């Protein structure tokens, strides 16, 4: 990536507490994108990354306008912008799909998380999720439920809509060395199965086991 296209000077420093180079920002976006794509459940909201990337794209578009028309560099920069926009759109789509698919559970998780825990949904996603829930419920009522016997006019969404399968297997790469990860707990038939995860190694494991490591950034889903 040519640095001239990202040359917007001081503005970036005001946005985040710790200054990130554009390359680091895009790397963070790609990590968040892959994690979200391969995780069976909705992950924490990364609105800061989304906002910064969108600002970055705006700057890149503006810089591109200044490049001499017909210059070969322009098409390469154009490609870069399109790639980043694709990753960002794909990331947001992944999240939206999971929000829609698991909407009662997502809303429940967000409602019941403590203040000290990071947000699962951005404010806009939260509004979308609530609207989706209300829309679907009022649809079901209007088209069928209100014409059913009195004791059957409600449906418990939390029971009716399936939960994400946290036991599905995922591929991961270890970024920070982990010791004594409990793969199988001790039962009457088997001893507890514990592994150490070496930095740089790749594994195929049940998501449930390594979920906390994904949110801490210790592993990357691939």
């Amino acid at each position, binding site marked *: 990536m040519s640095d001239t296209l990202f040359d917007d000077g001081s503005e970036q420093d005001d946005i985040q507490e710790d200054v990130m180079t554009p390359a680091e920002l895009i790397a963070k976006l790609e990590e968040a994108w892959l994690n979200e794509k391969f995780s069976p459940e909705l992950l924490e909201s990364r609105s800061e990354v*989304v*906002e910064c*990337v*969108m*600002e970055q794209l*705006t700057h890149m578009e503006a810089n591109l306008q200044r490049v001499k*028309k*017909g210059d070969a560099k*322009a*098409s390469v920069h*154009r*490609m870069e912008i*399109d*790639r980043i*926009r*694709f990753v*960002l*759109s*794909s990331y*947001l*789509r992944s999240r*939206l799909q999971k929000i*829609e698919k698991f909407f009662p559970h997502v809303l429940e998780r967000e409602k019941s998380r403590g203040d000290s825990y990071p947000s699962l949904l951005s404010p*806009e*996603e939260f*509004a*979308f999720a609530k*609207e*989706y829930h209300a*829309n*679907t419920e009022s*649809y*079901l009522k*209007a*088209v*069928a*439920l209100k*014409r*059913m*016997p009195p004791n*059957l006019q409600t*449906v418990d969404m939390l029971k*009716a809509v399936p939960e994400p399968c946290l036991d599905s297997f995922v591929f991961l790469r270890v970024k920070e060395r982990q010791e004594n990860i409990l793969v199988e707990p001790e039962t009457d038939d088997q001893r507890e199965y514990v592994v150490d995860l070496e930095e740089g190694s790749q594994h195929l494991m049940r998501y449930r086991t390594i979920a906390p490591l994904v949110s801490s950034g210790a592993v990357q889903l691939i």
Partner: protein
Amino acid sequence: MFCEKALELIRELHRMNDGQLPTFNEDGLRQVLQEMEALYEQNQNDVNEAKSEGRTDLIPSIKLRHCCLLRNQRCLTAYLYDRLLRIRALRWEYGSVLPANVRFQMCAEELQWFSQYKKSLAIFMRSLGGGEGLDITQDMKPPKSLYIEVRCLKDHGEFEIDDGTVILLKKNSQHFLPRWKCEQLIRQGVLEHVMS
């Protein structure tokens, strides 16, 4: 046999497992609701009789009817919800204006749901990046090449590309154009991506 009609609705959707939307089965829905009403009434009567005359022999039939009622409710909500998922997919494939032949398959309440859904989606997309907005229904595939071969499906007049040149989009003409410029027109059906 109870719940037959409800199961038929499910089978109807199961047969079209490529995501197509069959016509809304208004008749089928009504029949299931009628069956539920009849079952409920019978149960009300039996429950009263069981209570007032101590007829405990009625309890198994009451339980059976209750199970049928629950099954009917479950089948109906599954039928309706699965249709909603197919309708949702239509927004992402066709855009916010549905072709008439698709709208014809939907009942009034489904059209209402769709209208509300696309409104929520639009509000969400507009709010991205602190109000800047991003249309995430675009860029569905990773950009593979800068330029693509396209054929014009209908007359669209003059079209200017970034370096200033103007192309005349006449029906059946073929052009080698920047991909990002063509995406919108391809979705609208004006251009067709020619893949050799």
